[in-house]
């Protein structure tokens, strides 16, 4: 009989479930978020909980048996939040245990391809948002940014901005997940955040208009190519991009 391991939605919880599933070696087992699945007729339900020791054992196992990139693929693929990603990772890890580090070279194998592809998607969106995050300065000089990415890239973005904007206080608010990275007095923390009440700095509107004006001017009339622009800046991202805001100019 196969089993479905459920976890609390956190990465630590997922790794705990992964460790349990790997130990038991039941074929056809799945991992899913609690509340996201119903018990099947022929499937046992096991609640994994969140156990830091089991979680770090899972990481150690992947690092020991996989290639130098395996842990990275697992971590990034998990952040995709794609339906079924947990079970896809489980199958990928089983392959690692079976084939060792050469598994990551089996690029035409669907189990490898799936996890690699999800990981690349997350990495791609995170890189895009290194460019797409837009801060505004608030009255207390904190920089505030609202983002709504497809994947849970906040843990990848925050370290990037800690390096570049370490001399400021800032907030990156993932409004889709009601989560925020808060950087205050050189400390970075993550906390739930639903709505934020904001008072802009008096100078903010002026700088924003300068930028919008610059953006408009930089296009060359004779080369207009909105199709190419749409490929590079998909419409879904535009509502949080200052330069695509149709407000005052």
């Amino acid at each position, binding site marked *: 009989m196969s089993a479905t391991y459920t976890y609390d939605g956190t990465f630590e919880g997922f790794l705990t479930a992964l460790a349990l599933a790997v130990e038991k070696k039941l074929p056809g087992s799945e991992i899913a978020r609690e509340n996201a699945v119903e018990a099947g007729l022929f499937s046992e339900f096991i609640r994994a909980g969140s156990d830091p020791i089991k979680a770090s054992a899972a990481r150690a196992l992947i690092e020991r048996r996989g290639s130098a990139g395996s842990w990275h693929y697992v971590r990034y693929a998990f952040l995709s939040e794609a339906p079924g990603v947990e079970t896809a990772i489980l199958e990928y890890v089983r392959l690692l245990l079976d084939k060792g580090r050469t598994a990551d070279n089996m*690029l035409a194998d669907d189990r490898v391809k799936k996890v690699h592809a999800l990981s690349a998607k997350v990495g791609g969106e995170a890189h895009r948002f290194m460019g797409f995050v837009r801060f505004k300065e608030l009255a207390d000089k904190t920089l505030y940014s609202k983002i709504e990415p497809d994947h849970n890239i906040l843990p990848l973005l925050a370290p990037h901005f800690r390096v570049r904007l370490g001399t400021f206080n800032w907030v990156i608010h993932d409004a889709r997940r009601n989560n925020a990275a808060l950087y205050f007095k050189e400390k970075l923390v993550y906390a739930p955040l639903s709505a934020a009440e904001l008072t802009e700095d008096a100078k903010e509107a002026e*700088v924003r208009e300068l930028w919008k004006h610059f953006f408009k*001017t930089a296009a060359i009339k004779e080369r207009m190519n909105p199709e190419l*622009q749409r*490929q590079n800046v998909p419409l879904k991202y535009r509502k949080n991009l200052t330069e695509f805001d149709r407000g005052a100019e």
Partner: protein
Amino acid sequence: MDLDKKLEILADSAKYDASCASSGSDRGGRGTGAAHLSGVCHSWTADGRCISLLKILMTNECVYDCAYCVNRRSNDSAKAILTPDEIAGLTFEFYKRNYIEGLFLSSGIIVSPDRTMELMLEAVRKLRQVFRFNGYVHMKVIPGADQALIDQAGLWADRVSVNIELPTDKSLRLLAPGKTKATVLGPMNRLAQRISASKDERRSIKSSPAYAPAGQSTQLIIGATPETDREIIKLSEALYGKMRLKRVYYSAFVPVMKDNRLPALIDPPLLREHRLYQADWLLRFYGFTAEELLDEKHPALDLSFDPKTVWAANNLHLFPLEVNKASYEEILRVPGIGVTSAQRIFRARRAGGLSLDDLKKLGVVMKRAVYFVTAGGKYGGLKKETGEAIKLKLLEHKNPNGQLDLFGEAALVKAGMKETVTGQI
């Protein structure tokens, strides 16, 4: 004049410079900002080009009268100048909101090349020392400026550049009186020496200051003068080889000025520009030489096909290649296989033999590659293959009617431009 108006004038006059990269530097440290080795694009304008840097001129006034240039002396458009404080302040305000990766500063010549260079250096020095800014800076070097001033540029900037603009001395004399090949290549050569000396020094003493760590680039204008693609690509090859340039940009000529020395172009030659970028890529990442791509009998790039397909169709005796045995260098030369899929093939081969189906899964564009490869001895291409037959087949893919559909090609080109124009390598 208020800042907004100045910014409009000076961004408008800077936008014809094609350089957009913010890559090649990993500057960081105390203060604000850092550079990202692979570069970051922050937005894309309505023409599909990326914005990575605040690209502006310090001033659009100029003592020169180059026919192709929007900033020529005899153009009586509105003139503006930004002070070093304004340039540094604006860059910093934009940077902290994550609008940009940094500054691209160029300029018309005001008073003299030396005076212009001094003011530009002052702006960038302020940004680095007063604002303690560690983001990316690309600085244009003004031909004719004193060597000591040129030397300073690389101390503050990540990337430096001198634009050649016109590929031959003859064209320069015709369109840019006041400039010669020597006034352009002189500073370029000097920068190349400083960059390579600094690299050597940093190999032995890590703490010695980096000199233009993201190297040097230049730009050529395409279509304003009669040079052939062969002349242009040969020049680029020499610039990458002898001058160790990081990038050569190609800018389709946009006739912003009317002048009887200039051709009356209706549209900028975007497709030709795109083919040049593809050929340039083949020089830098695929191990091709200029002579292989364009010889004396064929000095122009084929507008219907990418240059790698043309080369492969003319060299069928080298194909088909067995993907399970061929070397990496050979695989790179197969149409439909890029650097990424070549690396994937090489990696996947270690885990076991590859079939034609597997190649598709690895991201190979099989509709092009199919004529040039076998996998495990299996071939999926034409029975009687000649270069012409393959080209005809490929054209069919582009247009089911069998005719060359220029608009279809143009759309294809525009999609492909993403890789070449933004070019974050």
